[in-house]
Structures are given as C-alpha cells and as structure tokens.
C-alpha cells in the first residue's frame, strides 16, 4: 500500500488508526517523509521532532493493541506554532531573545491534544512573538506559500498554515491576536478558526496581547476543526479568563443545512477598497449558501474604520508589558560584557528583538505613558466597546457575518516588509473579531487569477462556534470544487 497518509484528514487518520487499518507509526513515517520531501522548499518547520514523534506514535499503537481508547486524535500528526510552551524541544517564539529556551511545562491546549492521542511532529515558524502578517519577521527563516514559493504564507502563524497546505501535518496549532490564524489560512487555502475569547485556555501560550490572544487549529476540512475544538475547549483553572461554560459537541454541528439562516454582509467591508476579484469569490460563496436556503441581509458595523488604530494601541500596550520579562536576568539571551543593570536591559533587548517587536514595544510604552494614557489607551478601550456593540447590534439582524478574510491574496515576499503601515492593513478584516472577542473562521473559497487561494471569513456571536461550523460545513459540502494540492508542492 502506498504510504500517502500525509494527504489524509485527521478524522480519516484517526478512524483508520482506531480500526487498525494503519498504525500510528506508519502515519507518522508518512508525514516525516513528506516533511523531508517538501519542507526544504516550504520552510514551515523550525524544529522536527522525528524520533520523539516515532516514540509517541509507538506508544499510541501499543495502547491500541491493548484495547485502550486512545482518544479522538489517535495517531494524528500535529505541528505546533513555536509560541506554545512544550517540555520537548525549545520554545522560542522565533525570537533571538528566547533562542534555546526550554519551557519547564506543557501548556493546557498541548496537554489536551496529547491526552487525545495526538503525535507531535515539531515546532513551526512564525513572526517573532506573533507580531506580523507574513512570517517574514521570524528570526529563524522565511516560510514560503505552498501555492507560490515567491509569496508569503501570511502570518503570524505562517508556518502552521503552510504545513497544512503542504500536507506536512494533519492539524497544526496557531494563535490569533489580530488575524494570525485566519489570514494565513486564507493565504494558503486551509481552514483556520479563532474561537471566542475564553474558549481555549491561554496557559502555555506565550503572551503577545493578553486581551486579544486566542489559540486555534488549522485543518484540512471543517470536520477536523470541530474535532480539534472538542479536544481543546473548556474551562482551565490555570487561566482566569477561560470561560466557565459547558462545551458542546462541535461535531454535532456538521450538518449541511442553512435553511432560514440569516447571513449579514456588513456594508463597511464591501466598499470600493475591496479587490474586485476577491469580492467576486466571496459573492460566489454567498450564492452557494443562498441556494441552500440562507437569506442575505445588509448589516452595519459603523466603527470599523477605527479598528486598526484601536488594535495597534491595545495590542502594543499589552505587549510592552508582556515582553518586559525578557531581560536577560533569568533565562534566554543575555547581552555579553555589560557593565550595569541598565546596560544589561538595553543591550539584551536591542540585540535580542527584531525591528517589528522593538517598534511595537516602543509604541506600547508610548501609549501607556503619563500624559498620553487618556488620549490613547483609555480612548482605545472606549472605542473597543463601541466596536463590540456594533457586533451585538449586527447579530440582532443576522446569525453570521460573512466577509473576505483578507483584502488581497498572498503577497510577494519582501513586498510589504519595508512599509509597516501597509503590512498592518493586511489584517483590516480580521482584527475587529479579536477586539469584539467573537469567534471567526476562515476557509478557502477558490483561487484568484494568479492561482492563489481566496479566503472567506465567517463570524458569529460569542460562544456560537456551532453556527459557524454549520455554515462552514454546508459551504464545504456544496461549493462544488476541491482546493487540491498546492501547485508548488505537488
């Protein structure tokens, strides 16, 4: 039998492993071989845990042989963005300042995946400390888009997205502060969800902006997203902000039925600024859902224009404090030959961080400074609640909001790196979701003329991931095309 298990979805692998049609080890070998084949081009992985993965797979196989219930991710190969704390390997956030850093613990999401029978293949590339939209800000390497190796895979979870598109993993884990799961998912043509803030414990996720960060999976299909959410969601006593709410069985939402569902199209997102080709792809997707009985309503999110400004005040303010701990005193990089404590801090941080991280720390320090706090941070918090209210009002009129995930398809490597403001605009359609704390999913809706994927974003009320999954599943079943294997890694 040809070993092409790397092409399969997580649920296909899980079912086959449980039915003993294949061993977890065979599946793992298949993925390791695939990584060997294509990662030289894609550069999604920063660290491959080949031997550890084989051992983990063997342990799964042994338990299956004993008749044990291994879990809903039995033998599923998973890759982790390097922002997740793992006892195995290093946890560096792709920053020089954490080079070689080994975490003493596994985070909650990682622990839950492991308990469900997952096999970890290694760590994936990202923008340093999750700050970026192209994965070009990694201190390790630049990840390529599997559809066109000259293009970025999006960011900051670019490694996680590319690894799914290139069939290097069945599921990967990312984090999303302003679009860092959804935008790269759109860029590479896979499914990526940012659940409601509080759905998944952040314990073990190295913080960028604590009030915005959420963990989420990248998958090949919607069913795998539901399975991954089932495993990871739910209250964790180690995270005070994790929601104390019952978690539904998300696989029950996988029904191709949207009759009577109201789809909201916010007029502020469908302006002349939206690329015509992208608009066409979204409208095609809307038509698919309409044919299944959904109704389209126009909604308004009047404070949309302020979202980017609000976001870059709040996220930088929180980041300036969150990253203060990387100072060379206790762990990580320490600048050599310093003469004073002050110099230790300055030199360690100047040498240890890349330019985008330094820029955001300075911005965040500025907006919190005495005399500026009220004008920036406090005002941003007020506008944030207006943005949240926009969504509350919109969801009175509709069940989901559909928008493009990104204003354009993936851009060329180097195209925007010289202009941070233009780079920030890549997240124009995704950051409101983080500010409002609501769930949002991106999935592919075809290819644009350049042969790159387009992504559609589905948003819903807080803790209503079920409706998102139902809409996404319906579209996936009825859209009438397959994305297929990306051209550059065929």
């Amino acid at each position: 039998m040809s070993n092409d298990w790397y092409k399969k979805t997580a649920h296909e692998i899980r079912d086959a492993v449980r039915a003993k049609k294949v061993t977890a080890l065979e599946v793992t070998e298949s993925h390791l071989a695939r990584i060997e084949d294509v990662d030289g081009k894609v550069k999604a992985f920063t660290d491959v845990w080949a031997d550890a993965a084989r051992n983990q797979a063997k342990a799964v196989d042994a338990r299956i042989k004993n008749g044990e219930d291994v879990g809903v991710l039995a033998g599923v190969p998973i890759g982790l963005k390097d922002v997740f704390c793992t006892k195995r390997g290093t946890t560096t956030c792709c920053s020089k300042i954490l080079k070689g850093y080994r975490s003493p613990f596994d985070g909650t999401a990682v622990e839950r995946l492991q308990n469900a029978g997952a096999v970890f293949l290694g760590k994936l590339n990202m923008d340093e400390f999750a700050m970026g939209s192209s994965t070009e800000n990694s201190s390790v390497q630049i990840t390529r888009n599997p559809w066109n190796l000259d293009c970025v895979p999006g960011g900051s979870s670019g490694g996680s997205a590319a690894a799914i598109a290139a069939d290097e993993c069945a599921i990967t884990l990312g984090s999303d502060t302003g679009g860092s799961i959804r935008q790269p998912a759109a860029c590479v043509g896979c499914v990526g969800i940012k659940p409601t803030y509080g759905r998944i414990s952040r314990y073990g996720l190295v913080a960028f902006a604590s009030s915005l960060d959420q963990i989420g999976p990248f998958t090949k299909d919607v069913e795998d997203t539901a399975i991954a959410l089932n495993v990871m969601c739910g209250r964790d006593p180690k995270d005070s902000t994790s929601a104390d709410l019952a978690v539904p069985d998300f696989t029950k939402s996988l029904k191709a039925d949207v009759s009577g569902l109201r789809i909201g199209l916010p007029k502020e997102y469908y302006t002349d600024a939206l690329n015509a080709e992208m608009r066409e792809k979204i409208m095609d997707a809307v038509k698919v859902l309409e044919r299944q009985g959904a109704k389209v309503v126009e909604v308004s999110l009047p404070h949309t224009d302020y979202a980017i400004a609000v976001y870059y005040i709040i996220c930088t303010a929180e980041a300036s404090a969150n990253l203060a701990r990387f100072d060379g005193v206790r762990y990580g990089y320490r600048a050599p030959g310093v003469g004073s404590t002050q110099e230790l801090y300055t030199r360690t941080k100047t040498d240890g961080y890349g330019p985008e991280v330094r820029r955001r720390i300075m911005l965040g320090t500025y907006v919190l400074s005495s005399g500026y706090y009220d004008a920036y941070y406090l005002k941003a918090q007020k506008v944030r609640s207006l943005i949240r209210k926009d969504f509350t009002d919109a969801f009175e009129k509709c069940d989901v909001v559909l928008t493009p995930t990104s204003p354009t398809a993936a851009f060329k490597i180097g195209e925007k790196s010289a202009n941070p403001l233009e780079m920030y605009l890549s997240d124009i359609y995704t950051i409101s979701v983080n500010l409002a704390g609501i769930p949002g999913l991106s999935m592919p809706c075809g290819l644009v003329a350049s042969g790159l994927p387009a992504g559609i974003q589905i948003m819903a009320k807080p803790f209503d991931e079920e409706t998102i999954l139902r809409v996404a599943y319906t579209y996936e079943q009825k859209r009438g095309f397959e994305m297929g294997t990306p051209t550059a890694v065929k």
Partner: protein
Amino acid sequence: MKYEPVIGMEVHVELSTKSKVFCGCSTNFHAPANSNVCPVCLGMPGVLPVINKRAVEMSVMVGLALNCTISRWSKMDRKNYFYPDLAKNYQISQYDLPLCHDGFIDIKANGTSKRIGITRAHLEEDTARNTHTIGGGDSGVDFNRCGVTLLEIVTEPDIRGAEEAFAYLTELKQLLRYLDVSDCNMEEGSLRAEANISIRPTGTESFGTKTEVKNVASFSGIQKAIEFEIARQAKLIDEGGKVVQETRGWDADRGITFSQRAKESAHDYRYFPDPDLVPIVVDEAWEGRIRESLPELPQARRARFESGYGLSAYDAGVLTAEKEMADYYEAVVKQGCAPKQAANWLSVELQALLTEHKQELTASKVTADRLAAMLKLIEDGTISGKIAKEVLLDMFESGKEPKAIVEEKNLVQISDTSAIESAAREVIAANPGPVAEFRSGKEKTFGFLVGQLMKATKGKANPQMANEVLRKVLKETE
C-alpha cells in the same frame, strides 16, 4: 518660627496566606533561596496568574477592621518598571480602584484619643530579594518572596508628630495581629513602614514639600527618623533654605536621615488593567460572611476587660496589647479565678519571669490551666501568696502541675490553730529577750517574733493566723 508636622504613613504588610497571591508556591520565609518558586512567580513565558481567594478575604478583613468601604468591584493593574527583583518587570498591584478605601483607625497618643484617616488598602504581590554578598562581584536574586501577598495601607496626612506615628503603627500592628493575617515581623520584612513628612507654619493650612523616609527597621527607628526629619526641615526653612522632594533613608547608627533618590528621577509606572485577571467582585453576601468571621478587635476587648472584669484602664491595656496575652488571661479567668488577682499574677509575676528569660508567653511551661490551678490553691488557702511565687518559679522551670509541686515540697499552708499554737509557744520559750521587750511595750519586736514563727513553720503558716495566734499566746503566757 513654630511649625506643625504633617505626616502620612504607607505600610506594606505581607499577609500570611499559605500560598502566594498568584500561584501555589509556599510562603515559608525560612526556606532555602529559590526553593519556593514555580514558572508563574518566576515570570516564565506562557504563564498566567490566578488570584488567591484567601488573599482577598484577608485584605477585606483588614479593610473592615479599619472601617473602610469595601469595593464591590475592583481590579488588578500592572505597575511597570524594570528591576531584577521583579520577575515580570511589572508588579501586579491596584491603581485607581483599591479593594478597601476611606476608613479610619483611632489611636491614643500624648494622653488623648485621635482618629487617623485611612485613604486606601490595596492588594499586590511582593518582589524578590536581591543580595549583593555572594562574591565575585555578582548579585543574586532570591525569588522565594516574589509573589507573596502584600497589602499596602495608606493613611491620610493626619499624623501630627513622631509620637502619633508610633502610636498609629502600634495600633495597626496590634489590629493585624488580632486579625491573625500577618506576623508583622519587621526584621523579616513582613511589615514595612514609610513616612511622608512635611512641615508648615503652625496655624496655616497648605502643605509644605514632603520627603519620604524609607527602609527603617523598627517602630522606634521610625519615631526617631520622623523627629530628626521634622527638625531638619525646620532648620532648613529657618535658615532660608527649601525642602527638596525626595526619598530619604535612615541611618540608625548615626541617627540621621540621608538623601536616597530625588523625585525628578521618579518612575512613570504606566499602570494599566491586567488583562490576565478578571475583576475582583466582593458582593454584600461575601462581605457579610467575612465581617461575621472577624474576631473581637483590640479596642473592643480593652473596653470589655475594663467593664467585664473590673480592671483598670492600665491593666486592660497591658493584658490586651498582645492577642496571645489576652487569650491566656481569659482562659485563666474562665476557670473561675478572681479577675484582678489573675491580672496581677499574669502581667506582673509571670511577665517578669518571661522577660527575664526572654521567653514568649505561648512557649511557656506555665500554661493558662496551670496558672489557674495555682491561683485556686491560693484562693482556697492551700498556699500563701509568698509560697505561690516559689511554686510559680518551679512551674516555670519544670512545667510540673502546681499541686504536685506543693505536695512534693510539702508546701501546704498550716491552717491548723493547734499546730500554730504549739509552734508559737516554742518561739516564745526560745526568745525570752525579745518577748520581754515586746511586753515592755516595744510593738516593733512583734514583727520579729512573727518572722520567727514563720521560720519555725518553714513559711507554711497561714500568715494571718500566725499573727492572731501569736498575739493570743503572748497574752495567755504573760
């Protein structure tokens, strides 16, 4: 010119929660360096704080005891500054919405009672401890203390002198000890006090420039530092100078304050709400349960000791100064001992032994039960007060029961008239000289003869009976 001092105090108290305020680490002070640490209090990447509910409860207890309003809704903020003793380079503290605010405490100073306003009491985490003595020019950081629960209590500028400051600290410490929320050990740093001091011409209303005196190791040190600072500022102004706003340290050996840091280099702490923690909500029901759990506080207890046990204000004050002493006293009285006698034996006789041997009351072998048993032996006439002192000393050293000591040493008081009478006859027979003197009208000699009688009975004769019987026999044998 005559000046009036204006003083506000800031006191940091380590609350004695078993675990730290945001993680599960032990707060044991005596553990080896960096043994009570975990990823959370070390500020490792990926960790999150979770607030210790007991820390909130203890803070509310203090707030209620200080007559504060308890915030129904408060939050934790990040106070940002860089220092190696701060694992995250921000301290989780409270900025604009403290847990407790607008209270007061009544103090007694210079013979009068005075009310000191409490501005706020807020919850925060303690920092680590830096040491610069590990050799090789390196400094070390011990993170055991990092994350220990800290309550900062801030007064209004109501304090008008060093005596009042001392009285405030004494009263506050007593309150905290009664609440059993801190050991208030200044040497170990579990209570740290700072004073903000300024002066103004007597009779004026506006405030002068203040200095902040920090890092003083004792209450009396603070009193001296304040006295020094008031005099220093007055001299400076009288000589045409100006007080500079600054932080000053206290040199206990030289008895002077000295400049540590000018206010110009003060930090901008860039406070903002900590997004990792949810708001602290203390509803009426919770506050009510905490209020009900409060023990009797020192002022109430003092008043009850005066009215309930008929003690003088002085005795009531001495007995309630330490909660342990007051508890001990009540345990003795509860066994039916006369309150005044119990007060005397505890605060004078036993206290003298404790002081002499530098012993804590709670560690003494003379338990409340044993002292009560001894007092009963006095009350029922088994031993005299004089013998009781001997019994107390024995108990203090051996920890034996008073009854056993009395029996073992044959110290039972002789209250049998015939036994005393025959001893009296022997004394009279053996001392013809003094007896003759007494009979010739020298009353003073009677004391000598009583002494002889006590000696003959090895001090065990009931003293009053000894007097009466001796007089009677002297008359009979005249």
